């Protein structure tokens, strides 16, 4: 009976494992190649380095040293943090305040405001690039960190407000009533009640915004494009592809450098990331 079941399930196992292998192979190739010397990379496929034990001793970290020091990926790594961390904090703070008002304060036009925010979630960035770029040039915000913090915050807000408001709105009404009877101000209720209760959803939102900003190319390209000293990893990597498109030993190492932080975030906080996606599936 058990063997029969296993046999019946065999196709399922085969399909699933095959698909996983197909999904993993491209990234695996990148990782292996990033540790191979240039000549090796050009003379044989990365899989030969895996299956030929005599080649294992040739693996090297020289590519990483090169991209981090010579190709500017080290500076870009720092820039990515300087862009992403403040952006995430700004977006979340502003979104949480707005979401709180939209969930628990009664005022005229609340529904209309809410609908507008929901509608703004799907506005294509492309609709805003030219006027914002002109504004940035006029106020000398192009190529500055504060400029890109604000732009990313603006673009990220609709989804963040939506996510947080849905969660805040589901908190029990009695919670607020008893807090106010005890004499708490709305702001105190926000800081002492709402925020601590919302840690999981705040984490989801933060991971979402963090990954989105870290991985962004378009916004950085448009508002930071001409300013190499503030370029994040994505921008630096895309420049590298343009200038050293056939130097696979550098490209693979540089790509891996740009992936390492999102992968750590993903692998350690996957649970929250999934939760955010499930709650925010509305976003395009």
């Amino acid at each position, binding site marked *: 009976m058990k063997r029969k079941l296993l046999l019946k399930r065999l196709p399922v196992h085969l399909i699933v494992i095959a698909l996983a292998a197909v999904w993993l192979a491209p990234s695996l190739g990148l990782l292996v190649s990033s540790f191979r010397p240039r000549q090796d990379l050009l003379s044989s496929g990365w899989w030969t380095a895996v299956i030929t034990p005599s080649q294992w001793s040739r693996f090297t970290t020289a590519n990483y040293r090169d991209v981090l020091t010579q190709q500017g990926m080290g500076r870009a790594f720092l820039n990515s943090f300087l862009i992403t961390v403040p952006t995430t904090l700004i977006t979340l703070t502003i979104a949480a305040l707005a979401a709180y008002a939209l969930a628990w304060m009664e005022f005229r036009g609340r529904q209309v405001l809410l609908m507008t925010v929901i509608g703004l979630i799907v506005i294509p960035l492309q*609709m805003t690039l030219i006027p914002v770029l002109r504004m940035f040039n006029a106020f000398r915000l192009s190529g500055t960190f504060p400029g890109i913090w604000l732009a990313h915050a603006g673009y990220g807000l609709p989804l963040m407000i939506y996510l947080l408001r849905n969660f805040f709105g589901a908190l029990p009404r009695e919670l607020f009533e008893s807090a106010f009877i005890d004499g708490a101000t709305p702001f105190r209720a926000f800081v002492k009640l709402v925020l601590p209760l919302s840690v999981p959803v705040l984490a989801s939102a933060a991971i979402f915004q963090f990954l989105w900003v870290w991985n962004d190319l378009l916004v950085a390209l448009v508002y930071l494009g001409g300013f190499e000293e503030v370029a994040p990893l994505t921008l630096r990597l895309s420049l590298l592809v343009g200038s050293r498109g056939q130097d696979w030993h550098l490209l*693979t190492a540089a790509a891996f450098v*740009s992936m390492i932080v999102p992968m750590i975030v993903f692998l350690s906080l996957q649970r929250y990331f*999934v939760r955010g996606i499930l709650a925010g599936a*509305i976003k395009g």
Partner: protein
Amino acid sequence: MNMGRAHWLYLAPALLLLGVFLVYPSAETIRLSFYGPRSDTFVGVQNYVRAFTSRPMLIAFRNNLLWLGVFTLFTVGMGLVLAVLLDRVRYEAVIKSVIFLPMAISYVAAGVIWRFVYAFRPAVAPQIGLLNAIVVGLGGQPVGWLIQRPWVNNIALIVVGVWVWTGFCMVIISAAYKGIPREMQEAARIDGANEWQVFRHVTIPFLKSTLAVVTTTMIVFVLKVFDIVYMMTNGAYDTDVIANRMYNEMFQFSNYGMASAIAVILFLAIVPFLVLNVRRFRVQEAVR
């Protein structure tokens, strides 16, 4: 709670940013789309006429349609298949992470990864790209995956998108799939339904609204697809898409009128989904 005007204090920062970065620029872009390259002369609908008649734009439209069909079909389809199959194996979590992982990395990195998979060398040289190594290993000639127009290279780009987004579809569909009451499927099986019939008549109807959400999300993404094309071909060899055209009109040709018109067209294509989003939200609110 009612407390006078205090709510505006909470809303002000958000409204300011939304106004400055989304609402005002969108309105301004619509205005600019009726002006010339330098935004100083009114040209009426001339940009739009050109957008719908020029060859590069028509190719971009065609490609976006191709993306729309192939990308959406494969991401949602494979997401569904994976959600159903993975429910039956014990190592579900591991495989899910593997399929979902590309979602965490940038399209720029994904672009490098796949340019490497697609790497092309003449038949006499050793193939270093995985795909051509397989083709040559099977006795074929190496293929210029990113050059061979019009279908091979466009499909090659779409594959990258599918690689990134299938995990997203899988996660959402899987969550809904696990919400199907087991008894429903069991009852159908006891009544003599085979696995396909259970899938077709119990699972699919149950997942219908989730599939609709996932599909619309994919469509909205597809219309805006930019990074993948920008990174892999930058639109060369007839692989251009609308969003990439907009970028090039803006920076390569400094034609702000044309770029704005393209952005507005993109926006108009997305409006139906904006309406859907708001509607769905209102239904949600009504049951809350």
